[in-house]
């Protein structure tokens, strides 16, 4: 489990994709403007929180498909 909530992050290092066993990632209450591409290779992620960031658009169809295929829980926002 990796909790990075309530920080000032707007990007993640690509090396985070090496955490193959990571199943929970909380990135809520940060400054992300888009879905971090770096998390796409985290195949074991089951819970991802991205609420309360600086997304300008609604969650894209791509993100919904990503959630569907990885079996992640629905985003809270």
């Amino acid at each position, binding site marked *: *489990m*990796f*909790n*990075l*909530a*309530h*920080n*000032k*992050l707007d*990007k*993640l*290092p*690509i*090396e*985070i*994709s*090496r*955490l193959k*066993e990571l199943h929970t990632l*909380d990135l809520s209450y940060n400054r992300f403007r888009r879905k971090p591409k770096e998390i796409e290779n985290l195949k074991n992620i089951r819970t991802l929180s991205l609420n309360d960031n600086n997304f300008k658009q609604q969650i894209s169809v791509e993100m919904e498909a990503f959630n569907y295929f990885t079996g992640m829980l629905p985003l809270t926002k």
Partner: protein
Amino acid sequence: MSKTLLNDIICYTIFIYKEVKGLTNMANIDLKELSVKELNSLARETAKELMHRKNQDKKLRKEIAQESHNNFKSNSSDIVKMTDTHENEEWMNKLWKWANDNEIHEAYLPRKESQLLNLTTLDLQHQKLTNIPAEIGCLI
């Protein structure tokens, strides 16, 4: 069996016997004085000695090979260990420096190697972080 062939076999047997026994005082053996029984005995003893030598050589070769293998394994293990330790030190030091710069308490990010390597949960919420270092990817 012809007498010539039999004689050759006997000569060869004695030659081998002398060789394996390292004997030199058999040069004057008169084959004609040896009975068939004695020749058979000589042949059996020679064969036995040859087999013993062969097994000894085999055992010795096996021991040498095993020792070489163990040495190689040990040296390789040491090298891998040294390399791993060196690599661990490098990324851990960078991670700890980042943690210190961001005033992350060791309760949230352990400063001990063993604890860091066994970390399964990392709770860094409310730390005012603006970046995450690449070394975070080294955590398991």
